[in-house]
């Protein structure tokens, strides 16, 4: 395949890795574009939610509330970022492998979070309700922001050149 004579397809010409010999998977580009948009849209509302949770918990409970809210925010961020990473990682895979990765990621995340939350429950310096409600608010705001990003991102129904 000579690069000088072949006209690149729209999918190939829009790819970011134009210097690579292997063709760019247009479906992977779509999923990664969506993941980037979701991350961009969700990260600042998430930070704002953690900040509000930390302020409210500090005012109501004190230092244990602040620590609890920050830990809850970190756990929520880690959980949400893992999904975004999973999207990027599995972008070029076939749906069969994406299903395996998504279910495996879900099971792994839930087991890790169960262990982490069980261990955190035994620490006196962490206010339990502050952690729980900050985490819940952050996760829900993050999910809402991701839905907004999904609605704003234009995904072509038929990928040209595929």
């Amino acid at each position: 395949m000579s690069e000088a004579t072949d006209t690149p397809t729209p999918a190939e010409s829009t790819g970011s890795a134009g210097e690579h010999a292997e063709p760019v998977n247009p479906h992977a580009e779509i999923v990664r574009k969506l993941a980037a948009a979701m991350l961009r849209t969700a990260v600042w509302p998430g930070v704002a939610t953690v900040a509000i949770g930390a302020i409210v918990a500090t005012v109501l409970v004190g230092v244990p509330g602040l620590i609890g809210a920050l830990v809850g925010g970190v756990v929520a961020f880690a959980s949400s970022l893992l999904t975004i990473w999973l999207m990027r990682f599995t972008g070029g895979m076939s749906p069969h492998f994406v299903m395996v990765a998504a279910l495996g990621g879900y099971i792994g995340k839930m087991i890790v979070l169960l262990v982490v939350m069980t261990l955190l429950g035994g620490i006196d310096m962490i206010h339990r309700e502050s952690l729980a409600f900050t985490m819940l608010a952050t996760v829900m705001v993050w999910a809402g922001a991701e839905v907004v990003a999904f609605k704003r991102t234009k995904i072509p129904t038929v990928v040209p050149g595929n």
Partner: protein
Amino acid sequence: MSNIVLAQAAEAAGSINPGLAAIGYGLGAVGPGIGVGLIWAAVINGTARQPEAQGQLQGIAWISFVLVEVLALIGLVVYFIASAA
């Protein structure tokens, strides 16, 4: 008398609370697990019927996955609050 009985019941409930919370969390994680499986099964079916729509189907599937996963995280938070001994 009834106060003593209630206090004893509350003490007993407190000691079994973490175990019940963990069982409840496990049951609460089953529903989203089924949901995630159904979402990706639909994507596999859809891609088999219309391979050129794979990117769009995966985008819809990921946003659905996120929303279903929030249910499991709500269950985790409920477990965390309820497991207070």
